[in-house]
C-alpha cells in the first residue's frame, strides 16, 4: 500500500510546488506572451524575502504567514521594475523577451551570491508544520499538505480575481483583443503592468514554499524554470485548469518514476513524457479557439 500511496501524495505536493512556480508564468506567458526566464530568480527573491522577514519576526510560527504577502509584494515590485524598464519595449517580440530575461536572471543570481552568504541562508519552518498525517498507513508530512493548500489558495484567488473583479475583466479583454480593449477605453499599459506584477508576485509566493523544501541560495531558481515552462506549455497557454492538471500530473509522474527508478532518471523520464505529450498535442491540454491562422 505504501508503495502506491506515498508517491501519489508526495507527487501531489511536488505538483503543487510546480503549480505555484508555473502560476505566475501562466499569467505572464499565457496572458501577455512574455517569456520570462528570470521567473526562477523572482522565486529566489521571494525566498530571500522570507529569510529577511524571519530576521525581523523571529517566531517562525508567525513569520511564514507574514512572509507570504511580503514575498508577493517584493517579487511583484521586481517584476514591475522589469516590466517598466525592459519588457514594455518588447511586447511585439516575444522570443526576444526570452533572451533578455536570461540576462536579467544571470544578473540577479550573481547579485544574490554577492549580497547574501554564499552558502545560502536558513528559512525556518513554522512549528505548526511539524508532524505527519496518517493516510492509509503512510505518514504524510504536514508540510506537503501546506504546499497543496497554499497552491489551492493562490489558484482560487487568481481565478476569482480574473473572473469577478473589474481588473480581471479588463485583463481578459486585453488578452482577447488588445486593440479593441484599448478602443473601449481600457488602459492596456496599466493592465500589462498589473498582470506582470501579479505574475512575478506569485513567483515570490512560490519562493516561500520552495524555501521550506530546499535551500535558499542564489542557485535555487534555476531548477524550477524549465519544469514550470513545460507545465504551462503542456497545460495549454492561458489555461488555468490546464496548468493545474499538468502540474499535478508531472509531479505525480516524477514521484512514481523516482520511486521505481532513480532520482536522476525520474527527471529525465518526466521531461521526455512532457516532450512527447507536446508533440502529440502541441496546443496543450486545453486551447482557446481563436480565428487566427497559426
Amino acid at each position: 500500500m505504501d508503495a502506491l500511496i506515498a508517491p501519489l501524495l508526495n507527487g501531489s505536493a511536488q505538483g503543487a510546488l510546480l503549480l505555484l512556480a508555473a502560476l505566475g508564468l501562466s499569467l505572464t506567458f499565457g496572458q501577455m506572451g512574455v517569456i520570462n526566464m528570470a521567473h526562477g530568480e523572482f522565486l529566489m527573491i521571494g525566498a530571500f524575502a522570507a529569510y529577511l522577514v524571519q530576521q525581523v519576526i523571529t517566531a517562525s510560527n508567525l513569520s511564514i504567514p507574514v512572509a507570504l504577502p511580503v514575498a508577493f509584494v517584493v517579487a511583484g515590485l521586481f517584476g514591475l521594475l522589469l516590466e517598466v524598464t525592459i519588457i514594455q519595449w518588447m511586447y511585439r517580440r516575444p522570443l526576444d523577451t526570452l533572451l533578455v530575461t536570461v540576462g536579467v536572471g544571470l544578473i540577479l543570481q550573481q547579485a544574490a551570491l554577492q549580497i547574501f552568504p554564499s552558502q545560502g541562508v536558513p528559512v525556518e519552518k513554522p512549528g505548526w508544520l511539524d508532524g505527519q498525517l496518517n493516510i492509509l498507513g503512510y505518514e504524510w508530512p504536514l508540510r506537503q499538505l501546506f504546499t497543496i493548500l497554499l497552491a489551492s489558495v493562490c489558484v482560487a484567488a487568481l481565478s476569482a480575481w480574473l473572473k469577478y473583479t473589474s481588473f480581471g475583466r479588463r485583463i481578459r479583454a486585453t488578452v482577447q483583443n488588445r486593440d479593441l480593449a484599448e478602443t473601449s477605453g481600457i488602459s492596456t499599459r496599466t493592465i500589462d503592468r498589473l498582470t506582470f506584477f501579479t505574475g512575478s508576485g506569485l513567483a515570490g509566493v512560490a519562493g516561500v514554499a520552495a524555501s521550506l523544501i530546499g535551500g535558499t541560495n542564489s542557485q535555487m531558481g534555476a531548477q524550477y524554470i524549465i519544469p514550470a515552462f513545460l507545465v504551462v506549455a503542456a497545460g495549454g497557454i492561458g489555461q488555468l485548469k490546464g496548468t493545474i492538471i499538468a502540474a499535478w500530473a508531472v509531479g505525480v509522474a516524477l514521484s512514481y518514476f523516482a520511486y521505481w527508478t532513480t532520482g536522476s532518471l525520474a527527471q529525465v523520464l518526466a521531461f521526455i513524457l512532457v516532450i512527447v505529450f507536446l508533440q502529440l498535442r502541441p496546443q496543450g491540454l486545453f486551447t482557446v479557439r481563436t480565428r487566427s491562422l497559426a
Partner: protein
Amino acid sequence: MSTISKRLRSLTAMGAIGTTVALVLAGCGARAGDEAAAGGTSAAPSCVDTSGSAVKLGFLNSLTGGMAISEKTVSNVLHMAADEINAGGGILGKKIEYVQEDGATDWPTFAEKTEKLLTQDCVAAIFGGWTSSSRKAVKPVVEKHNGLFFYPVQYEGLESSPNIYYTGATTNQQIIPAMDFLKAQGVKRLFLAGSDYVFPRTANAIIKLYAAKLGIEIVGEEYVPLDKDDWTSQVAKIVAAKPDFIFNTINGSSNVGFVKAYYDAGLKAETTPIISVSIAEEEAPAMGHEVTGQYASWNYFQSLKTPTNPKFIESWKAYPNSSGVTSDPMEAAYISLYLYKALVEAAGSFDVDAVNAAAKKNAITFDAPEGKVTLDGENHHISKPGHIGKINSSNQFDIVWASDKFIEPDPYLEGYDWFPADIRKQLVDAAG
C-alpha cells in the same frame, strides 16, 4: 526540393575538400608509438621565473556559477594564508604574488585556466579546485606541463599523480573512520543517500565493500542530481526501509533539501541519525535547526583543541571577507599553502622536480590547526586525524569520536584486505 538536395550535395563536397586541405596544410606532428614523441611529452621547458623578489602562485576557484557557494571561502582563505606567509617573510625570502582565476563551475574552464596559469602567468604552483570533476579536468594539464596542483577537499581516493598534492582526506581518512564509528554504535541497517556524481558513487561503492566486511546491511541507496533540492520521494523510501543510520554523501544545496525532507517525514536524530561527509561549519547554518544532533566525519572541526587552532580561527574571523567560521576544506586549503612553503624550503628551490624529490626524501610536516600533519612523499597525501562531530544548536560540532592516532593516507586502500586486489590493479593500470 531537388534544388535543395543538389545544393546540399555540393556543400558536402565542399566540406570534404575543405577538411582535406586543412589536414594537408597542417602537416604532421608526432604519431602514436613514436618514441621521440612519447619522450617529448614533457613539452616546453617551464617558464617559471623566481629570480626576482617574488614568486607567482595561481589560485583557481569557482567564483561564479553553482560551486561559488562553496569555493569562494576557499579562495578567501588562500588569500589569507598568502598574506600571512608574506608577513612572515615569504617563501625562501620571496613574497607570494598570487593570480586569482575563476573556474566558473565549468570543468573545461578549469582546464583552460590551469593551462593559462602555467604557460601565460608562469606560476610556480596552483592551489584550488573543489569538485572531483574540476580536479580531473586539471590533472591532465598539470601533468602535461609538469606543474604543481594543490587540491584541498576530501575526495574519493583511488588516484595519485606526481603533479598533484592532496591536502584533504582520502577515503581511509574520512569514510572508513565513519564506518568504524557506525560499527561501534552498533549499526545494523544503513541507508546510503548521495548526489549523483563521482564522489558519492565511488564512496558508496567502497562503503558497500566495507559494510559487507563489518556485517552492516545496506538497506537502500538513493541518488539525486546535484542541482535538485527536492528529496521528498527518496526520503519516503528511507522511511519505508527503516535504517538505523543514514550515510549522507550529498553535496551542495541539495543537502538542505535532504535534511528538510528528512525532518518533515518525522525522522529524528535520536532514532535515525545521519552521518555526513560534506556538512561542515560553513554549510550547517543554511540548514536551520533541522540539522542539530546529526553527525559529520571530518579531520578538522572548529571546535578542535589543538595549539594552532585558536590562532587560525582568530585570524580568519579578523580577515575581511570572512564567513566567521572555519571548516575542514578551508583548513585543508590553509594547509596546502603552508605545505608548499615547507616543501620549497626543504628543496631549496621552486623547481617541480626538486620539490617532488624533497617530498620523497624528507618527512615534511606542518603544525596544522588539525594537528601536526606529515606528508607522504610517495602518494602526495598527508596524514590526518579522524574525527566524528555532532552538530549542536550553535551549528558547531561536539567531538564524539576520534581516531587513536593520525591515519596514514592510503588512496588505493592497499592496507585493507576487503578491497578487491583486481579492482585496485585495474585502477592503477588505467591511471597509467
